[in-house]
């Protein structure tokens, strides 16, 4: 759910740039270090960015009869880790604004915060918690994708509520209003994205096991046998 160009008041739009900046700078530094150590990783990162963008071209059937697209933050965070996702997600959001007019330049800071920072961190945190608790790959990936998508939706609703508090009940009332209006599509979408991501990872485990092992999603074969 991208906040459209110009929708946020200027001071709020600027504030979200300030909030997102440290995460993007930290991610950029991590990316620069990684590329310096291994110049070939630039190609993998480019491919990861293009993959994240292409995920948004998938059309998930929606309960409202139309179709929605996944955020891709859950799968991206699990495969490529949240710091890198803050940069890759920022690049993808910039491309979505400039190639599709989804989101915008003035709202880029707010959209980066919800979709490239909070979404991936919640997704990665959920994945780690489920794995450490002894959960299998499927439940962990489902939790990552569904909660990452829900967190993105929750932050976007909070951003809108902070920008446009209810005249009577304040930010709390605005949270209920914006949350209610988008919940119809976003909650089923989060569950759909979770299920879809499990199917994707299950498919990739069969067809691209080596790639998933290299990215750390699957354990090395020797370790599994041991």
């Amino acid at each position: 759910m991208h906040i459209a160009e110009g929708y946020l008041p200027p001071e709020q739009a600027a504030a979200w740039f300030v909030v997102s900046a440290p995460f993007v700078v930290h991610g950029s530094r991590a990316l620069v270090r990684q590329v310096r150590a291994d110049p070939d990783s630039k190609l993998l990162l480019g491919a990861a960015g293009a993959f994240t963008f292409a995920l948004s071209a998938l059309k998930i059937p929606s309960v409202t009869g139309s179709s929605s697209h996944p955020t891709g933050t859950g799968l991206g965070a699990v495969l490529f880790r949240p710091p890198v996702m803050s940069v890759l997600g920022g690049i993808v959001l910039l491309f979505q604004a400039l190639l599709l007019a989804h989101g915008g330049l003035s709202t880029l800071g707010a959209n980066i915060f919800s979709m490239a920072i909070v979404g991936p961190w919640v997704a990665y945190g959920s994945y780690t918690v489920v794995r450490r608790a002894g959960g299998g790959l499927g439940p962990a990936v489902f939790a990552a994708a569904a909660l990452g998508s829900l967190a993105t939706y929750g932050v976007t609703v909070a951003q809108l509520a902070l920008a446009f508090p209810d005249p009577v009940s304040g930010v709390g009332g605005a949270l209920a209003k914006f949350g209610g209006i988008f919940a119809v599509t976003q909650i089923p979408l989060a569950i759909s994205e979770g299920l879809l991501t499990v199917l994707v990872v299950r498919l990739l485990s069969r067809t691209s096991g080596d790639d998933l092992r290299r990215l750390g999603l699957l354990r090395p074969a020797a370790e599994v046998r041991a």
Partner: protein
Amino acid sequence: MFALDIAAHTGPWRGRHPAEKALLALGLLVCAVALPTWPAALLSGGAAAVLLAAARVPLVVVLRAGRVPLLFVATSTVPLLVSMPAPARLAIDPAGLPLAAQTAGRSVAALTCLLLFTATTPLSDVLPRLHRLGVPPAVTEVAALTYRMLFLLVESVGAVRQAQAARLGFRTWRTAYRSLAGQAGAVFVRALHRARRLEEGLAVRGYTGSLAVQVAAHRVSVPFVAATTVLLGAIVTVSTGLVSPW
């Protein structure tokens, strides 16, 4: 390719320097967002709409690109027209109308300005120049690689979807989800395969870590920049009330 990118690559403003188009379109965008909405949104959005026509951007491209963001604006404006006096109780709030109109007006104007930039400026002209704004070269190179690969991958998604539809892959919810997983899996495999092929191709050419590409030289048009400055100056002056337009 994407309709906006095609319009940017084939339009009459293709040869103009990206900086002058950025000054015009993004200058108008800043005016639409930062200045008092009335009359800045009308002036900036109106100017951007006229300039879209002057740049011969097809109306159908503009309208199609505007559908999704306008749906968001329409949906998100509804909560501004109601208030919540008590939990789970909503009441129509006529006082919310000015705020709703202001927000929607600002957003539509800013969207028109964004479309002026995207429909006249190819992303391939912008990316190699981002390092001049302080973006690390490694980040701009990753962005350029992403840009090069995404067309292939999005096309792959379309081709796989078409093949699956021809095999009744979207007949039920169950088959639809299996087909979607197949699309994402195909894209993942193709993305990594593409990265590996690029890696091998660059290695045999003596890749040292730099992916510098030749950027077409464009000259900045002084009359264009001067006209832009006058236009932006006029909008700022009128909108801040220094000169009454009426």
